[in-house]
């Protein structure tokens, strides 16, 4: 794990001068020490929960009493394994949903990659109109909670199968759309793609800015068409970024619950996360954790494959200290048509669901879209007929405002913490590339990504209810929330950090080293600013996800620490769609606002000559 490279000889003389000097040499390489420290920390924060998870799958749970009348809760058993993988129900519980998951995840990943890479190329390399604005705009679909898009889809395409108000499509075209358009795998794939392409976009675009355009130009001089330049030169250089985008997207998509639940349920299209949710919801933790474990293993497999494919060999430094250029490609005639196409995409993925959301916050009774049925009551008060007078408007709804403040605080602190850790991990992984430390750290840093959020929170209660070493008992404190959120979103920053650092030539750091600039200052002054683009996008992803995170922290929050997502959840469970609309719109507006502010603030940060 620690990747100690000191040869065996040093162990023979544990206290000899030679060994201690070797140790000193070893310690003089900051990436090594860091590697060990990070491995220890992460081991505690990630592997312990993983171990707990595995343990729970092999013990008898209270729920199992019906099946195992003789067993005591807590006994060792392989019952869950048998049940999930080999039992009578395995087809229903595992194999079919697993297959469905694979299909939707693969489909969505492919589409995400296509959209994300094309967008990245357009925004980074071409003179497409409003480049800077586009850069923020294309991120917005991810800022909406994923189910918003699914709901929008249902609202638009729903047919008479689920009853209620007519779908917009049926309303406008007079025919009911077929089930396969309205529900099931196709809409799931489309909705997930429109949401998660942002990973590919961010990962690839931040990597693309550090690819010297002269490499493409050399391709042009060799007579390669633009497409060939991209395929033969740019794409391979982006391989680490693409690889990490694939991993992130696939794993995230295969683990996503909301969209398949909304769009799959009406036609009984189940996927693994819906099965996990079902099992956990009925407190059948054994099955639930086991299914989750399958996802965890799948994630490991993916990272492993990714590591093998991209490997040490094929990751190339593209940002050297010499003659770097980043040139704009002229799209010529296609400039505006492509822009128009993008706008259509944005309308579908952003404007449409957003409008629906706002509408939801304004409508007194569902299904009635007449002007008289609209009210601003839930935003600014004022009452009026048919509104719930007891619900204070947003402007003086202390509940929502406090929660908003908490969410902001939590997501900012998380983004900072996870940013720092992600960077450090990226640094260690890249600088010790090829060693065991590197590989395992990369893997471990990615595990929380797929770890079932609720279980994560539950296990953390046990881990932090007592003082651990020098740390006081964190349970019930805000610090624990920040900690768990940071660990959970670590994969974002770790991956983007790795991808960004892979492209920075060693000589840039060496030049500073030679000048006697210590490790810390080197990081602060040189490596971090150069990697900032990638890191920042990772931190934004963390921030966005934490802004709307609930399951992870629900068991750990105290009422005074309630977050915006918690408020939305409460309103949903109390069936108050307008307030759900208000709070969600607020959340989305905040996230978008924060993004814009950060973009503006960091515009002057010169990143990789972008």
């Amino acid at each position: 794990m620690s990747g100690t490279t000191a040869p065996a000889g040093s162990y023979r003389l544990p206290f000899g001068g030679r060994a201690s000097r070797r140790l000193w040499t070893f310690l003089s390489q900051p990436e090594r020490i860091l590697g060990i420290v990070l491995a220890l920390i992460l081991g505690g924060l990630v592997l312990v929960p993983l171990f707990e998870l595995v343990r729970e799958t092999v013990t008898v749970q209270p729920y199992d009493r019906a099946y195992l009348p003789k067993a005591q809760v807590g006994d060792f058993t392989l019952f869950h394994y048998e049940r999930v993988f080999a039992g009578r129900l395995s087809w229903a519980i595992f194999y079919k949903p697993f297959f469905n998951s694979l299909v939707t995840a693969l489909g969505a990943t492919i589409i995400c990659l296509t959209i994300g890479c094309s967008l990245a190329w357009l925004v980074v390399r071409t003179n497409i109109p409003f480049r800077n604005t586009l850069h923020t705009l294309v991120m917005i679909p991810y800022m909406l909670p994923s189910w918003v898009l699914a709901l929008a889809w249902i609202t638009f395409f729903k047919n008479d199968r689920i009853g209620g108000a007519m779908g917009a499509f049926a309303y406008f075209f007079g025919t009911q759309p077929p089930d396969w358009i309205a529900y099931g795998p196709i809409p799931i794939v489309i909705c997930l793609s429109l949401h998660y392409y942002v990973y590919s976009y961010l990962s690839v675009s931040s990597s693309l800015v550090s690819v010297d355009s002269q490499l493409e130009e050399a391709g042009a001089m060799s007579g390669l068409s633009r497409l060939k330049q991209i395929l033969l030169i740019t794409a391979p250089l982006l391989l680490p970024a693409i690889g990490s985008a694939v991993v992130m997207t696939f794993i995230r998509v295969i683990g996503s619950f909301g969209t398949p639940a909304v769009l799959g349920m009406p036609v009984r299209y189940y996927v693994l996360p819906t099965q996990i949710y079902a099992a956990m919801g009925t407190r059948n933790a054994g099955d639930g954790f086991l299914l989750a474990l399958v996802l965890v293993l799948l994630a490991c497999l993916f990272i492993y494959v990714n590591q093998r494919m991209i490997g040490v060999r094929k990751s190339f430094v593209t940002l050297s200290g010499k003659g770097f250029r980043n040139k704009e490609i002229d799209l010529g005639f296609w400039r505006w048509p492509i822009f128009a196409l993008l706008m259509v995409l944005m309308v579908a993925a952003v404007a449409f669901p957003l409008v629906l959301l706002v509408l939801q916050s304004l409508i007194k009774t569902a299904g009635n879209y007449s002007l008289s049925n609209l009210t601003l009551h839930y935003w600014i008060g004022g009452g009026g007929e048919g509104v719930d007078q007891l619900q204070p408007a947003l402007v003086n709804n202390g509940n929502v405002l406090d929660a908003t403040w908490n969410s902001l605080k939590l997501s900012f602190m998380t983004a900072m913490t996870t940013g720092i850790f992600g960077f450090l991990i990226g640094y260690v992984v890249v600088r010790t590339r090829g060693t065991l430390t590197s590989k395992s750290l990369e893997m471990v840093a990615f595990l929380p990504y797929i770890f079932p959020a609720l279980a994560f929170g539950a296990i953390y209660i046990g881990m932090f209810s007592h003082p651990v070493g020098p740390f006081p008992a964190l349970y019930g404190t805000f610090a624990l929330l920040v900690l768990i959120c940071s660990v959970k979103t670590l994969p974002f920053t770790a991956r983007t950090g790795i991808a960004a650092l892979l492209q920075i030539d060693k000589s840039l750091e060496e030049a500073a080293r030679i000048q006697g600039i210590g490790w810390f200052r080197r990081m602060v002054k040189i490596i971090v600013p150069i990697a900032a683009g990638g890191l920042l996008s990772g931190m934004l992803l963390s921030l966005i996800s934490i802004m709307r995170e609930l399951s992870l922290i629900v068991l750990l929050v105290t009422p005074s620490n309630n977050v915006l997502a918690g408020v939305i959840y409460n309103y949903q469970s109390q069936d108050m769609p307008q307030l759900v609309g208000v709070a969600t719109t607020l959340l989305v507006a905040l996230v978008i606002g924060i993004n814009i502010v950060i973009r503006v603030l960091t515009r002057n940060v010169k990143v990789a000559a972008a």
Partner: protein
Amino acid sequence: MSEIILSNITKSYGSHLAIPGLDLEIPKGSFVTLLGPSGCGKTTTLRMIAGLEHPASGEIRLAGKSVYSGDTGSFVPPEKRGLGFIFQSYALWPNMKVDRNITLALSEAKIPTQTVKTRLAEALSKVQLTGLEGRYPSELSGGQQQRVAVARLIAARNSILLMDEPLSNLDAKLRTEMRTELKRLHRELDATTVYVTHDQVEALTMSDIIVVMRDGLIQQQGSPYEIYHNPANLFVAEFIGDPKINLFQGEVTKSGADFAVSIHGLNVPSRRGFEAPQGPVTVGVRPEDIEIHHEPVAHALAAEVDFVQPTGSQTLISLIVKGQRVTALIPRFEMSLPTKNVWITLPVDRLTLFDASGNRIAPSCGEQSASHAA
């Protein structure tokens, strides 16, 4: 016939006007070198010819066809122009081994595998990298990388070759050999070549035409001889020649029909037929033209030896003449001179005169031919 024509090309980077207006015609099959101080726009010019950079205005024609026109907005992209280019920063593809770096263009152009193989082997042996085809660029030394870039050009065999300091990281021996290779390539393909270098020997020995630039403007364009002996202005005179030309403040005087140039009180009588307006001038004398005497002679200036610096086949002598530093060059390897006080004479027929605004004072006909014959 001109193969490459730039008419009134301008280019700016943001607010920085890199090329304020460039006119350049390059005849087919010729070898043209762009020379000029660092940052004068050589790379920019090459990149515009290649189509890697959009000029702001003007027109570029290659082989009779317009590839860029600021008026009509037409623009032929680089991959359609069929040029060869060596980048100043090599631009090797880090994801490909040396062999792929060299042959990519060929295999893309559907050239038969066998031919590709032969050309690869040939190009590698010409740049003396045989055996390294399996390495990645990051596993090569700086000079090796540069040679891969050269090999890429050699293998591609385009009819217009653009090279941006292709030999800057090579040692003298290799450089001489590579120079020969590039020159041979140029001849074999009858290619029109635009070459950027900061090495004067390279420029003087290889070029048919040298173009001297400064701040994006052409200062002079001509054969190596013209550039060296008849620099259009002080800038060119100072820029060309290593060690640098010596400049003296002088004055043209006339006594009867005979002109003379006085320098530091020394009257250098001019040759027959010399004519120039009277008044102050700047006089340029190349170091190798200064003669050093160990005892006083007529028409000589007293000088003091400051230091002696052998450069191999020659030795630089740094002298102080009336407080002014003067460099002389002698064709031997010397570590020191026998005496500290020497006398120098200036060659009557090798003085170049510049007027107050720095332009060369055109010599009379007689003088012109005289220096040609020298």
